[in-house]
């Protein structure tokens, strides 16, 4: 009978027993409610072994691709190692390839991609500074297109990690990063679907990764990327994104400036408002939202009320920006 490894302990399954029943029978306390594969409160991630198809019905595609499954509905066919999501992390040492200023506040940091470092574009990782403080940054790179990892880091006044990156870090240094996490990613299928991507500040990083990945995977429905800042100087990667717009019929770049009169080619107003003015009905759309937490939470609700399905809204709020 299969063995389940959970938090370093082995648990033997009885014939026909689910992972949930196996764990609870042996006194392990885990979250669950319906025991029928519906409520999803027992979701775990398989770090080794394959979840059964039945245990992944109804789970968000991005989570499914990362091995998330419902332990109540999984009668395992092989040995499995399982973990509560977000507690499955491990760390990697890697080398700084380059640092490059994208505007007055934002630095592009490129790192060597460690062997066996798996990630999806749009996920984030933890970067550890020289005193052991960790902050999360989104990945702008795309496996298959880029052999490096790219982060776009805003220099926060007094920021312990961003300050260290800007003031101390140099090409050739060794840094520690965590395994990538997060579910703000593009997954193949439904390639004619319309995509709405809205980001503020360095919320652009994961969205650029998502857009490039979608194009790479043959997405042919319209991809609308809105990037907002109060001033033109707060935007970055403008020439690169204009070029990407011109080179790809499906990709549309919408730079938005909320203060003053924007130059030609840019829209006036906050990115979230401009996007919803341009597209008031979002039934059938897939939506990606990254950046300031208040903007992301508000827009998550507004895009849902505008018709996007909850399972098609991928939100990545940047929390605790003040202490980043």
């Amino acid at each position, binding site marked *: 009978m299969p063995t389940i490894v959970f938090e370093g302990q082995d648990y033997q399954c009885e014939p026909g027993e689910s992972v949930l029943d196996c764990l609870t029978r042996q006194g392990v306390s885990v979250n*669950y*409610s*319906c*025991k*029928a*594969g*519906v*409520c*999803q*409160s027992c979701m775990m991630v398989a770090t080794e072994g394959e979840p059964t198809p039945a245990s992944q*019905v*109804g789970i968000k595609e991005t989570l499914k691709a990362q091995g998330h499954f419902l332990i109540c509905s999984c009668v395992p066919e092989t040995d499995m190692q399982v973990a509560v999501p977000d507690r499955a992390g491990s760390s990697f040492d890697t080398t700084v390839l380059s640092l490059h200023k994208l505007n007055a506040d934002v630095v592009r940091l490129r790192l060597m991609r460690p062997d066996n470092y798996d990630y999806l574009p749009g996920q984030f990782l933890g970067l550890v500074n020289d005193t052991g403080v960790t902050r999360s940054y989104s990945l702008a790179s795309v496996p298959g297109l880029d052999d490096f990892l790219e982060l776009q880091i805003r220099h926060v006044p007094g920021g312990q990690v961003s300050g260290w990156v800007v003031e101390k870090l140099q090409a050739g240094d060794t840094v520690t990063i965590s395994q990538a996490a997060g579910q703000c990613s593009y997954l193949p299928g439904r390639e004619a679907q319309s995509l709405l991507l809205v980001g503020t500040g360095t919320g652009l990083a994961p969205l650029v990764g998502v857009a490039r990945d979608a194009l790479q995977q043959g997405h042919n429905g319209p991809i609308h990327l809105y990037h907002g800042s109060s001033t033109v100087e707060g935007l970055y990667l403008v020439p690169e994104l204009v070029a990407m717009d011109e080179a790809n019929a499906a990709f549309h770049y919408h730079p938005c400036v909320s203060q003053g009169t924007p130059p030609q080619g840019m829209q006036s107003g906050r990115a979230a408002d401009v996007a919803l003015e341009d597209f008031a009905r979002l039934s059938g759309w897939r939506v990606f939202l990254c950046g300031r937490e208040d903007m992301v*939470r508000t827009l*998550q*609700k507004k895009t*849902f*009320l505008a018709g996007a*399905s*909850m399972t098609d*809204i991928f*939100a990545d709020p940047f929390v605790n920006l003040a202490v980043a």
Partner: protein
Amino acid sequence: MSEALFDRLGGEAAVNAAVDIFYRKVLADDRINRFFDGVDMDKQAAKQKAFLTMAFGGPNNYTGEDMRKGHAHLVERGLNDSHFDAVVENLGGTLKELGVADDLIGEVAAIAETTRNDVLGK
């Protein structure tokens, strides 16, 4: 009997079809949407799904105690019978939109009704 209702409604597929419609109605309803301000929408959608599964007569492990604990902070903020009625109304509207027959809607409403005293902490 209640398992049969779940099947007659269309089982899990019916829950999946209903959850977006129901949650959108609730968020758009000015009588009750203030109780949902600031919640994590992904977590809330999962809770709505669990609630609909239960109300559809599907499998669940809800207990009165869970219901009381889960809503106590809302009762403190003024949650009362009128708000409960509004949720049941949105539930009925959702099922109607999905083309469910009135007698089945009545059965669902009756199951939802069994949670009223626990939800409102009576």
